[in-house]
């Protein structure tokens, strides 16, 4: 157990280092930060001085180490726009993104579990076909389109929901729904296929052979086994929702990290971009790590030595 933990931890740290490397490389390759901060007419000495101040005249190796050591302390520099520390900007927006991701996940789970279970337990029936059709459509609808459609329907035509804003439940419903559709469809299929695969296993047949009531068989023999692997997927999907809410946040003017990142990219505000991308990626790594550990606790087949 300890060995396993240590190894996973080491892998996670290696990935974090890799993330910082990739971000560093991309930002260095994509242009000279100093050139952004000074007007083009500035003299060469001004450039040289700014570069020196920013540490850009040192070797790449040193630059990276400085960058990385600062990053570990959460220092990504200041936004070029308003000189607020980049980290602070990102952290300020984090709750909004978390809220959106949670909302989307809740909606997704509320749809996916019943739909997937019912479809899986009635394989080949009309209801199964209906659920599958919804899944296929749900996985085909792009988020930016469903967002627009929702706005068109609920805001423009029915006037029951606001098109943007933040703070009340009405503001959350549409973005969370748009974001959650894809996840709902995907999870439904996973639940369904999990149920189908388990339903034909030998131990389910043995459960029937004992004369157990159908409800007991479904609950304790089918579902317990089918839903266990889904737990890891849910964890990872949540992590993916955090970073993937970019479009939704933009359309609904949701004050989250994704929208901040896109705006910063267009404004070439590198410190903020670096901060948010690295923090999002790091969050993913952490969640991944936790999910792995949790799964080992809940699956009795995995021995904890």
């Amino acid at each position, binding site marked *: 157990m300890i060995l396993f933990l240590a190894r996973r931890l080491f892998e996670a740290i290696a990935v974090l280092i890799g993330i910082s490397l990739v971000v560093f490389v991309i930002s260095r390759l994509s242009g000279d930060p100093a050139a952004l901060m000074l007007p083009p007419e500035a003299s060469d000495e001004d450039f040289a001085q700014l570069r020196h101040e920013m540490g850009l005249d040192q070797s790449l190796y040193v630059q990276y180490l400085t960058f990385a050591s600062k990053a570990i302390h959460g220092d990504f520099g200041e936004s070029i726009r308003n000189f607020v520390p980049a980290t602070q900007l990102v952290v300020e927006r984090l709750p909004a993104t978390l809220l959106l991701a949670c909302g989307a996940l809740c909606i997704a789970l509320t749809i996916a579990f019943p739909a997937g279970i019912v479809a899986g337990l009635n394989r080949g029936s009309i209801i199964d076909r209906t659920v599958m059709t919804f899944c296929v459509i749900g996985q085909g609808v792009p988020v930016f389109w469903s967002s627009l459609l929702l706005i068109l329907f609920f805001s423009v035509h029915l006037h029951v929901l606001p098109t943007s804003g933040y703070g009340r439940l009405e503001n959350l419903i549409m973005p969370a729904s748009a974001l959650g559709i894809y996840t709902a469809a995907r999870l439904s299929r996973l639940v369904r296929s999990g149920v189908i695969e388990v339903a034909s296993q030998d131990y389910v047949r043995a459960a029937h*052979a004992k004369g157990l009531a159908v409800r007991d068989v479904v609950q304790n023999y089918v579902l317990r086994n089918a839903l266990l692997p889904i737990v890891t997927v849910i964890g990872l999907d949540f992590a993916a929702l955090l970073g993937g809410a970019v479009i939704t946040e933009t359309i609904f003017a949701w004050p989250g990290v994704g929208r901040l990142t896109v705006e910063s990219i267009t404004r070439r505000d590198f410190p903020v971009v670096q901060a948010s991308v690295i923090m999002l990626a790091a969050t993913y790594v952490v969640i991944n790590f936790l999910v792995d550990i949790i799964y080992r606790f809940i*699956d009795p087949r995995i021995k904890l030595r």
Partner: protein
Amino acid sequence: MSTNPADVEKPSPDRNVLVVKNLSIVGRGKNGQVALVDQVSFSLRAGETIGVVGESGSGKTMTALAMMRLLPPNVSISAGQILVESEGAVVDLVSASTRTMRKIRGKVLAMIFQDPMTSLNPVLRVGRQILDSLRAHQPKRMSGAREAVLNLMSRVNIPVPAERVRSFPHQFSGGMRQRIMIAMGVANSPSLLIADEPTTALDVTVQAQILALLREITSSSRTATVLITHNLGIVAQQCSRVIVMYVGRIVEEGPVSEIFQRPQHPYTYLLLRAMPRLDSRRGEYLANIPGTPPSPATRLTGCRFFDRCPYRIERCQREEPPLTQVGAGHSARCWVMMENSGSMTQPR
């Protein structure tokens, strides 16, 4: 409870626990329906153990699953009756409703499956699974449940049950898992136990223990047993009667002693000859039956064993022989019969 008055065997003092009449099972394949089991009939009395022997694909497992009405999704019973007694009346399992089957499974009939690893729920503790067997047929017991489970575990010789009751299936050895399955099977004292190759997945040393356990449990409770196996040695040990199946048909049936001493069907004879014996001479080759059984999908006239049979005659290809009585309780499905072929015929 449905019965067909014309066919019902009246319960007699030494009565039949199970009567299978002309059971036929078909499977739906790519090219239409395939007969997997064709007109199998046999009956079983309380306390009797009957062996069902055959190669893979002979239909023996399908017959067992049919009795439990647990056939795979694309396989179904096409004809026949399976009669058992439940709650004082005779029930035909072929036409019984799902609700009736739930009452019968585990209580009147119970089944032990071949692979105990895959037949036990991996995420439930063992005690809980045994308890499920008990609770399926008894009102929810608040007290006495734990003792009942521990008693069952002791009865199947699981050491230190109190400690092991909270363990998971993967924490047991193969032999222990099979004991757990047996415990679940006999939990409600069924009148009929179906054991589908209960020892095939186990080590040889453990096999003997499990077989001994089965013998002891079924004899003390007078439980009738259907023992499915491909191993004639096991049949010799455990069974009083045996049915030999080939490509879905019964080719020979009768008392074990009869069959072993005077097998009539060439297939049975060759099976017996193929058994490794301790007293065989050194350097003697193991006999085997050349060829493989035909797929059930191939349409053949005549005897199914024709192309592998060393004793065949021309008639065997034209007409399929009927099950013919050759002795007391002993029948075989053959035109030639080993007695007639004698020792003069050399295998081709």
